[in-house]
């Protein structure tokens, strides 16, 4: 979901990745799994963790004997934060390495770049990051949160618990924040929030001078109504944003900020003492009190040989996606794409917050929404947990998509069925 203008990482990454990771000799008694995450360039900051998590999950599965009596073999490639390169690498994984499924991508741009490749070559991609929705592909499973699994419950929480009446929607200027803010604005207006009580602000990538905007927020918040900031600010720009908030003395008790892209990983680069009480909405926090999570964290620390490494929400999404795929392959008795696509719908696997997640016919999953407050130790205190929510691919709050649904079960097999005119093929792919 993040996207960043960058040219630099691409070149070096391209050189690195073509030489690396091709040592693995294709043996018939293994099932190959592709891992498509940037290990260099601007997105490496987020994506390397997911690569490690996938390697860990595959290792754990192999310890249990693999799948269908075969060991899993990871094939790691580095698309170097370069969107077109994602498509090339995906093609390489599917055609040359003959992987059974691919786990990867972070930004929406990279997902959009590989989508036609997966559809053309009929392979499967598991996408583990929260995104803006408005998409449903036969070959992609979206295990991260759709806007209704993150943004809307967060706004509900602030409205009901904190009594917020005035909203600042602050985001980085690209597709994820814009779509999310559009949905949120429509949602807030449907809840009776007046137009002048919503302030929308966009900033460029890597924005580091937040003085004006923070003081604007302060001004906006002094109109006598409880105010909150809903932040879709991209990971990198968050540190200076939160530093400025702290320095200008905006406390969470006065104007809380709820963020959708700030997790344990992002807070690791930050002194969180002045930020205590600011919120984040995810489907998982490392602080979740569940035996399955404790076990996961233990394995993660052992695998990375570092007991300070944090876990985060996209890791959980990768975990759910991987478990669901394993279960579907076992049920189908083969890794053949069409067979797996049939069996995976309806598969339920445990998630890390102590419940189960089910793969729905729209290729999204069910999971609970957790609201957490930042603590001084960089972890989150969970202040609310909803029951499991079904990911809504086509938002009900946007006029373009409110009539669309997606159902990949036969006989409908359609990613954009229009319930108003009963035809498959509305907007989007």
């Amino acid at each position, binding site marked *: 979901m993040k996207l960043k203008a960058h040219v630099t990482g691409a070149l070096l990454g391209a050189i690195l990745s073509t030489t690396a990771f091709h040592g693995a000799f294709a043996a018939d008694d293994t099932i190959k799994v592709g891992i498509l995450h940037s290990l260099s360039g601007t997105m*490496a900051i987020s994506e390397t963790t997911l690569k490690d998590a996938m390697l860990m999950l595959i290792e754990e599965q192999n310890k249990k004997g693999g799948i269908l009596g075969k060991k899993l073999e990871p094939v790691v490639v580095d698309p170097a934060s370069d969107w077109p390169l994602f498509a090339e690498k995906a093609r390489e994984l599917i055609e040359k390495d003959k992987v059974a499924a691919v786990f990867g991508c972070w930004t929406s741009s990279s997902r959009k770049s590989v989508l036609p490749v997966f559809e053309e070559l009929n392979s499967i991609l598991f996408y583990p990051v929260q995104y803006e929705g408005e998409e449903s592909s036969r070959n992609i499973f979206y295990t991260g949160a759709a806007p209704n699994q993150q943004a809307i419950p967060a706004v509900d929480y602030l409205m009901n*618990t904190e009594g917020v009446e005035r909203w600042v929607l602050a985001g980085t200027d690209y597709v994820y924040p814009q779509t999310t803010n559009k949905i949120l604005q429509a949602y807030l207006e449907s809840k009776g929030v007046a137009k002048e009580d919503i302030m929308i602000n966009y900033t460029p990538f890597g924005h580091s001078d937040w003085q*004006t905007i923070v003081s604007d927020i302060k001004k906006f918040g*002094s*109109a006598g109504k409880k105010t909150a900031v809903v932040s879709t600010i991209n990971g990198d720009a968050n540190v200076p944003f939160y530093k400025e908030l702290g320095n200008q*003395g905006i406390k969470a008790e006065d104007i809380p900020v709820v963020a959708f892209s700030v997790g344990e990983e992002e807070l690791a*680069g930050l002194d969180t003492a002045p930020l205590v*009480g600011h919120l984040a909405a995810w489907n998982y926090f490392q602080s979740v009190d569940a035996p399955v999570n404790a076990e996961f964290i233990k394995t993660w620390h052992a695998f990375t040989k570092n007991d300070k490494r944090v876990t985060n929400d996209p890791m959980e999404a990768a975990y759910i996606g991987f478990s669901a795929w394993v279960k579907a392959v076992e049920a189908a008795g083969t890794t053949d794409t069409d067979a797996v696509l049939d069996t995976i719908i309806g598969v339920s696997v445990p998630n890390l917050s102590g419940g189960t997640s089910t793969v729905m016919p729209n290729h999204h999953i069910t999971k609970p929404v957790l609201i957490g407050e930042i*603590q001084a130790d960089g972890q989150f205190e969970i202040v609310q947990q909803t029951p499991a929510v079904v990911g809504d691919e086509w938002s009900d709050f946007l006029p373009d998509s409110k009539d669309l649904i997606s159902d990949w079960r036969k006989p409908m097999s359609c990613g954009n069925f229009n319930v108003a005119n009963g035809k498959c093929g509305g907007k989007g792919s």
Partner: protein
Amino acid sequence: MLIRFISLFFLIIFAVAPSMAQEDARALFDALGKANFKQAEELVGKIASTGDPKVVPALEAFADGNLYARKSDGAVFIGTAAGANLALTDPMSGEKAGEEAKGALTKVKVNNGLRRAIRSALGGLTLLSPDKAIRMEAAQSILKSPSADSLELVETALSNETDMAVKAALEEARAASLLISDRPIEEKKAAVATIKAIGGQASLSLLSTALNSADEMLKPDIEAAIKSIQDTQSLWAMAQNIWYGLSLGSVLLLAAIGLAITFGVMGIINMAHGEMVMLGAYTTFVVQEIIRNSAPGLFDWSLAIALPVAFLVTGAVGLVIERGVIRFLYGRPLETLLATWGISLILQQAVRSIFGANNREVGNPSWMSGAFELGGLTITWNRLWIVLFAMVVFAFLLFLLKKTPMGLRMRAVTQNRRMASSMGIRTPWVDAMTFALGSGIAGIAGVALSQIDNVSPNLGQGYIIDSFMVVVFGGVGNLWGTLVGALSLGILNKFLEPSVGAVLGKILVLVLIILFIQKRPRGLFALKGRAVEA
């Protein structure tokens, strides 16, 4: 009849409540362990209504998230870290109550709403504290979150108060509470005047809140007060914009000033400049890590220690780059551009491999945290120090170039290499030193930027374009040009931002610079003389 019974019943309850509360404070704390947020908020109110100052430390611990319930019996204690265990303290008596493993305790959760409730409860409880500073704090916290309930408390405190400063703060707190109480309108009018006199954003917020529920008679008064505060605010907004501009400008100056040497003076298109800034920031991180682990007392000095270290580290890296790569490429700008770009990628990936791809935490020393008010301006300490620091670095560099033998040689070599060489100056050596100086300056800029930005391998990329923009705009080869260029770009940016937004503002600035360069290709301060033809 029934009604009478019920009211009698409540009367009894209320009459008994205060005396019961004393004994029950402990029970109330224990109840927190099982309460949800709403119930906990009520419990905090009840605890506060005991009026017992002994509950203050426990409430403070609660706000900080240090209250724990023992799983075995549900008793609630204040917990402080003691190795792997937590040392327990009784919330009422303050006596030690042994240690417990973390697993045997559950944290009593606290959220924003609760913290707010605790803060206002504490405000009421500490109003009569013997300590002047605590009373001041209590008055200020009531001013921030006034309630009609605390009005009487404030008035009692006011009649006992002897200190002038605290008295003034209490007057303000009283006015704020009075506005939302049901006192007669004359008193309220006086309160509006008091708040109007305080001015500032906080008062604006108080008045706007009051306006929503105000009596028709009072509304004109409040509206006039709001208007008058807003007028003053908009005057100050101008000054605030200039300050923000200066502060942004000084960040640009810091980022660009090293480039003003390597690109401006030497003419090397140095794409690895941003990575020198990044290395400086990482040096700060390493220095802070060492200090954290070996001498935590020195933490406030960490930046001062990091400055020379960063200068030496990045200077040395610059020296190696110049001797190893750039010196073979003088006079071939395109190849220099590609080579330095390659170096920048190598440095980025090297840092990524050594420190990991994640952001590293560089702490702010205490003297760089927070803000202070200057009239209607909010000035954050870190920005103020960075502005001052940028000026000092600029002055240092100017002195070095204009007043020292080394600076003289540098200028001589850039202005006319062959003549300088025939005068006996070792031009290769001067080149190397100049490049090292530029890199070193970029490194100390990195120390400053680590205070306001991410310390990640991508840090440099964010500044490289801006740096080139400043140097080209200001005039290549002229330090004063860089100064004026950076500050004017900063201020221009900050004046555009409020009206057109940050994204469009940035684009507009870029367009203006392009137009300006069309008109004056050599920037604000063009160099005259032989160098121009070179």
